[in-house]
């Protein structure tokens, strides 16, 4: 099927498909694309993961630095998330200072992880008041065919959960596995043709309206929400995607846990 490139035609097309409960690539509303996930794939990172969802491909890499703790929190290390969306990943991403879109992406992924409490920054202390670990999570996109939020969030938690603290290289003890106390998972829904769908492709994003990002923790608690882009939604619409997210997040969490066991 030829895809109209004029946005208004694309919108019409997506609405017509939605009326028949169809999507451009034949998926059902809440079905995700084919998923590949691989950890330990970046030789110079202390934790890494590559995620492929359809034609969307991203990496997350974890690096460690030694920081001086803030005076008012002498026993705490830090977590920093950086999403620099380089123009390699698609024709619409431009070089230059971080765009609004990349800032939002980095902050939303960061909040899901941070607010779940899975990284205990007190556990990152090396010497109180003097040295602590700063965990740096770099999100890096290779190919953007839509829904980079979920791809980044999945790569991020998998990279963290398989990361090794490089204590030997910094001469502060023996290497050890970074403790991560949970597996927060993000699921994102975009309004396309008037209803929310899961794991939108780039074309669905171009012809769609608002998106909602939901990050849920191991117990099904909500850790982060974000509505992005222009659009209005009702409580009923929200409840429907929250239900969908509860089951999909559990499935993805199992995939991450199985991956760790098989390592």
């Amino acid at each position, binding site marked *: 099927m030829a895809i109209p490139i004029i946005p*208004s035609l694309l919108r019409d097309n997506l609405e017509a498909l939605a009326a028949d409960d169809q999507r451009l690539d034949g998926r059902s509303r809440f079905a995700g694309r084919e998923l590949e996930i691989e950890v330990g794939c970046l030789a110079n990172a202390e934790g890494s993961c590559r995620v492929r969802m359809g034609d969307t491909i991203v990496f997350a890499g974890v690096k460690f630095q030694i920081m001086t703790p803030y005076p008012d929190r002498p026993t705490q290390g830090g977590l920093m998330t950086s999403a620099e969306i380089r123009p390699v990943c698609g024709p619409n991403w431009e070089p230059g*200072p*971080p765009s*609004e879109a990349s*800032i*939002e992406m*980095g*902050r939303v992924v960061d*909040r899901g992880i*941070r*607010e*779940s*409490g899975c990284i205990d920054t007190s556990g990152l202390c090396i010497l109180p008041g003097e040295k602590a670990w700063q965990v740096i999570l770099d999100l890096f996109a290779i190919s953007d065919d839509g829904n980079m939020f979920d791809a980044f969030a999945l790569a991020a938690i998998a990279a963290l959960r398989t990361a090794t603290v490089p204590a030997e290289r910094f001469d502060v003890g023996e290497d050890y596995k970074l403790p991560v106390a949970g597996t927060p998972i993000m699921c994102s829904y975009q309004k396309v043709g008037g209803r929310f769908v899961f794991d939108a492709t780039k074309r669905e994003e171009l012809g769609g309206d*608002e998106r*909602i990002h939901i990050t849920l*923790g191991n*117990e*099904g*608690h*909500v*850790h*982060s*929400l*974000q*509505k*992005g*882009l*222009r*659009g*209005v*939604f*009702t*409580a009923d619409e*929200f409840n429907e995607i*929250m239900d969908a997210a509860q089951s999909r997040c559990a499935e993805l969490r199992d995939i991450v846990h199985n991956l760790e066991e098989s390592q």
Partner: protein
Amino acid sequence: MGYGDYQCMDENGIREDGRKADEMRPVEIECGVVPVADGSAYIKWGKNEAIAAVYGPMECHPRKVQRQDRAILDVRYNMAPFSTTDRIRPGFNRRSREISKVTRDALESVVDLELYPRSKVRVEIEIICAEAGTRCCGITAASVALADAGIPMSDMVVSVAAGKCNGIVLMDLNKPEDNYGEADLPMGILPMTDELVFLQMDGDLSMDEFKIAWDYNIKAAHDVHKIMIEALQKRYGGDV
């Protein structure tokens, strides 16, 4: 006092500042506070103080961001350097950029942008005194400023936030509740339909807590909406 030692509520269910769990801080709104703007509003919300100014519709520069079929909103949220206990250094700030973006996303959902193709409307939000909940102040003040500027909207956005502290769901966290609290759920509500145009959340809420917080927000939005209407009526008289 360390983290976790804060007690947000006494045995009678009264918070440190005298409010009940589902009660807002006092909110005052005034229109027309920036004489040179096309529309403006001042909001005092607890100890928060914000000013919003609207300029336009005007020609859209640079051309690159122009839209052929509609206007764009050019929204900036900013905290004045003296608005917080520790001075904020002017300049690029990821938090402000993100809040500017979600505020624009919220307001673009109600403004009738198709009336002004190739134009832009500038919305400037300045926090001059910050307590907790400044993004809600900003969105609410900007809605009033847009109305003051006569920009057609399907409804005004009312933004409020419930949260959680000591495991108790509370409406409109003040500063210590925010510092020691466990969750925050800011929403942007259209009072005519109870639909949403803005939603963020961070922290930890069970689904039950989440539903209580949501309902608190819907109720509070209607209270704040009355104050918004009164401010506009005070300026223009009669119905708004």
